[in-house]
């Protein structure tokens, strides 16, 4: 097992009287797909937002390669190597697909305040953008404006944008939600490929996708971690079955 790069310990997030996250701890290692599941309101997205810096934690520690980053801003964390995508599609609709990735890759450029050179003349940045676009299989759509891409393609583009920032860890908030069968199968293959070089933390409701991808599963209920471990162990955990999986199966059946 590779060493975990991201370690969260005792994370708590309160919104007024509501405790959205209660003493949550988890670890993420390279090559690992760590899936977060749980009913709506369990605190999964809050956890992603706290890890990415979009929300400050009320208590707890987040360590990235041993460095305490709980007070770091989202852009600092991104530059350290923590990439993310959002539950809502968040691409720049008026830019074409390549420009979306180019802008993302540009954030790694050491001289961002050079005002007199065209943005598209930085070869290394454009190369990184093309590489990211190819990695998600969107290279044939490079010159299509993002707003004209299909929903599934926009979700792929979002992942490509994060990849263009060359992250070590990816936090993905429901990347498969709203996709058709074919698109989600494509996305699952894509995520499996990405996981080879990255640590992936995944929030997902689609259980087939979760069990197809996850190497570690964490079940959250009411802001707390109910159980965490390898998927097979979680699947057979009676408490989890009662709280979550079982009820979902009953509803389906």
């Amino acid at each position: 097992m590779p060493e975990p790069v991201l370690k969260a310990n005792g994370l708590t997030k309160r919104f007024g009287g509501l405790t959205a996250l209660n003493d949550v701890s988890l670890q993420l290692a390279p090559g690992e797909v760590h899936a977060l599941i749980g009913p709506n309101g369990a605190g999964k997205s809050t956890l992603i937002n706290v890890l990415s810096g979009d929300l400050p934690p009320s208590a707890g520690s987040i360590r990235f390669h041993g460095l305490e980053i709980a007070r770091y801003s989202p852009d600092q964390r991104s530059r350290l190597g923590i990439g993310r995508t959002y539950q809502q599609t968040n691409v720049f609709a008026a830019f074409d697909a390549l420009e979306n990735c180019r802008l993302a890759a540009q954030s790694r450029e050491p001289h961002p305040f050079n005002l007199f050179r065209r943005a598209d003349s930085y070869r290394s940045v454009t190369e990184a953008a093309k590489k990211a676009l190819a990695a998600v299989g969107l290279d044939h759509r490079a010159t299509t404006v993002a707003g004209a891409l299909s929903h599934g393609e926009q979700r792929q583009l979002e992942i490509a944008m994060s990849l263009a920032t060359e992250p070590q860890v990816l936090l993905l908030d429901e990347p498969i939600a709203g996709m058709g069968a074919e698109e989600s199968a494509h996305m699952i293959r894509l995520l499996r490929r990405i996981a080879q070089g990255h640590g992936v933390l995944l929030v997902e409701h689609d259980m087939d996708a979760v069990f197809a991808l996850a190497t570690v599963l964490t079940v959250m209920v009411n802001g707390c971690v109910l159980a965490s471990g390898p998927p097979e162990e979680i699947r057979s955990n009676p408490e989890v079955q009662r709280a979550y999986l079982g009820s979902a199966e009953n509803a389906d059946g």
Partner: protein
Amino acid sequence: MSVTRATLVAGLICLLLAPLTGATFYIQLFSKIMILAIFAMSLDLLVGYTGLVSLGHAAYFGAAGYAIALISPKYHAANLWLTLPLVMLISAALALLIGLLVLRAAGVYFIMVTLAFAQMLYYLFHDTKLGGGSDGIYLYVKPELSVAGIKPVNLENPLHFYYFVLALMLAVYFLLRTILASPFGRALVGLKVNEQRMRSLGFPAAPYKLGAFVLAGTLAGLAGYLAACQFGFVNPEILSWHYSGSVLMMLILGGMGRLYGAVIGAFAFVLLQEFFASQAIFGALAKHWQLGVGVFIVLVVLLLPKGLAGLLEPLEKRREPRTGDA
């Protein structure tokens, strides 16, 4: 050549040839408009490209006007090579100071604090003897532009002044276009569209916004310098919120987020004023010209969401993004 570009080139040729008519009134009117176009373009960098709606942009324009009036010697000409950079530096420093404070706020609060700082400056000059109080002060002799002892441009000459301003307007247009095509400019547009996403991609929002704010203030300072030179006079009106509002209206009228929209807006705004205030056309109604200008602006906002510059676009192949067709 696209329709937009052809129209802009035609407009430029008209501006180049306009002085041949020999009508001093129009030469001076167009000089004034082109100065306002520089002012409006500087605001467009904030409003149209960075998404920062400032209602206090006259502060940098007015401060520059007062600066050149105050530092010019009374009976002989100031050196333009020295005073222009100095005055723009003063505007830049003011924008840096105010920017550091106001950029902590967002949305409506940002609008209000920019307004508040501009009003502070307005009352500083209005209520103290610093710049002649509410009467303002004169700039008796215009700055002198000399190259190795010869004076190729005499700013006292309206024709020379016209071409000097036209050249600077073009320079500002191309400067801003260059900057907007640079990584810095692309990041500003990204921040306008979705600041949260930009931050999660690793862009620190604050230095980018501050950079845009200072740049916009500096170029507003250039416009303020030129305006003071043209009229030979400054008063607190050039710092007032009416003035900040007018330049914002020029942007809305012309179309935000496209630099030529700011130029079109400046021309439209001033020429509409002239039109509705013309006694030859409107007789006694002419003194209520604000009504006509107001109705026109309301109609533009209702019918042309992209401003007058948007009129050029339906003629071209649209590359507009559709909303997702999933």
